């Protein structure tokens, strides 16, 4: 067994981001006597906003030059059924990690669903390309270590924007690294360490392209209609994470201004911009 580079990169990236953020200074806190502004600053949860915005600009440059054009080409070249097949295949590969997190969160029913999906799709679904499990009444869901940490009570920490990875926070970034480290496919070599290394990089590359293609319309819409796409993405990410953590199918039935941790909780919540 030989560990691939990816699990070693994640902690290094986290360290780089955190030191960079510490060095670059923080967002200016509003004056102490402006209670509403203080509360907004806290609810926005972006104390290192100048650094994050710089990282966002880096990401946008990479996105404009590489990621988006590749995603547009991918969409143009491959028809929808093929793209769906690839996306199904990738999500099937994530099943072991999803199942682990279902189990860690004590979600026995969802654990069973994930397991059933993996078995059905890997066999009848031709290695995961066809989502036959959905037709058997086992709809897909995602789960990751960031969500598991949240369920265990770990707070998200300050908002982070990471180039290529996108919106995150220390909890979810750590969860991302743990997810790679805990993935059996990161470690299994099947007797061909070099081939598996290449396969893992190919998988990472295709995942980035497939994910970006899936976000084409939504992100184009943000760029077109938002006066501050950075702020829009920050808010959207935190809302979506709250919903994913709560495992609610639709919208989180929170008070209009409240979001909370996404966990059932009776404590009144602060406004969430």
């Amino acid at each position: 067994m030989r560990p691939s580079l990816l699990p070693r990169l994640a902690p290094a990236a986290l360290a780089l981001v955190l030191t960079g953020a510490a060095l670059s200074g923080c967002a200016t806190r509003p004056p102490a006597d402006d209670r509403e502004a203080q509360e907004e600053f806290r609810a926005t949860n972006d104390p290192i906003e100048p650094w994050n915005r710089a990282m966002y600009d880096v990401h946008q440059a990479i996105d404009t030059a590489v990621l988006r054009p590749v995603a547009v080409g991918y969409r143009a070249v491959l028809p929808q059924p093929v793209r769906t097949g690839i996306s199904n295949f990738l999500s099937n590969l994530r099943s072991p990690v999803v199942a682990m997190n279902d189990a860690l969160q004590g979600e026995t029913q969802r654990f069973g669903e994930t397991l059933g999906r993996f078995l059905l799709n890997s066999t009848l679904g031709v290695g995961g390309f066809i989502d036959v499990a959905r037709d058997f009444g086992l709809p897909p869901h995602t789960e990751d270590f960031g969500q598991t940490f949240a369920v265990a009570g770990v707070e998200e920490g300050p908002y982070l924007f990471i180039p290529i990875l996108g919106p995150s926070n220390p909890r979810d970034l750590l969860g991302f690294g743990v997810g790679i480290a805990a993935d059996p496919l990161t470690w299994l070599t099947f007797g061909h360490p070099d081939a598996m290394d290449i396969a893992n990089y190919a998988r990472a590359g295709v995942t980035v392209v497939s994910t970006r293609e899936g976000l084409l319309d939504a992100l184009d819409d943000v760029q077109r209609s938002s006066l501050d796409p950075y702020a829009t993405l920050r808010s959207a990410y935190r809302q979506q994470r709250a919903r994913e953590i709560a495992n609610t199918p639709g919208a989180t039935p929170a008070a209009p201004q409240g979001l909370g941790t996404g966990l059932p909780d009776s404590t009144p919540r602060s406004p969430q911009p």
Partner: protein
Amino acid sequence: MIARRTLLAAGAALAMARAFPASAQPVDTARAAAFIQATGQELVAAINGRGAVAQRRDQVAAILRRAVDVEGVGRFILGRYLRQATPDEQAQYMRLFEEVLIRNLSARFGEYQGVRFSLGRSQQRTEDDALVNTVVERPNAAPVSLDWRVSEVGGQPRIVDLIAEGTSLRLTTRSEYASVIGRNGGRVSALLDAMRQQVAQLSSREGG
């Protein structure tokens, strides 16, 4: 995200209550679902209609103007800055907000040619409004779950929020506007300038 201290939350709730007078009343879930069903069918008919693009867009805009509580949503989004704005700025904001909201939504829905729409499984009540879940299906795209938050405004059900895959339009827009104002020294007039520019861009893109 993080559960805040009760005191702060209570203070914030108080501030919210002052900013948004009791215009919204509890709404009956079945009534809200029927309202969304009817509005959705109107929208789908307009989107898939035979007319020219501009004509369909105008129809969509007219339906949205009737169905959405534009003023309530606008007030919610500007939040605490509403009270900081001068009466003139408030009036300008409301006019611009309606323009931006309706144009953005009609442009987005206008691309949904061939759309099909159905009520989803879960309809739920919240403290002062109802969430109506719908599933929007478009050709060559995965079905999208869209939730409509419906409130009773002046005795009529009105849409007060649109939630796509867990992301609330009014929450993201509130964050967006607060950020624009915050990055321009807390001046509401900076937001108005940006909105004016956006309206100009939107109308030039629409070709008129």
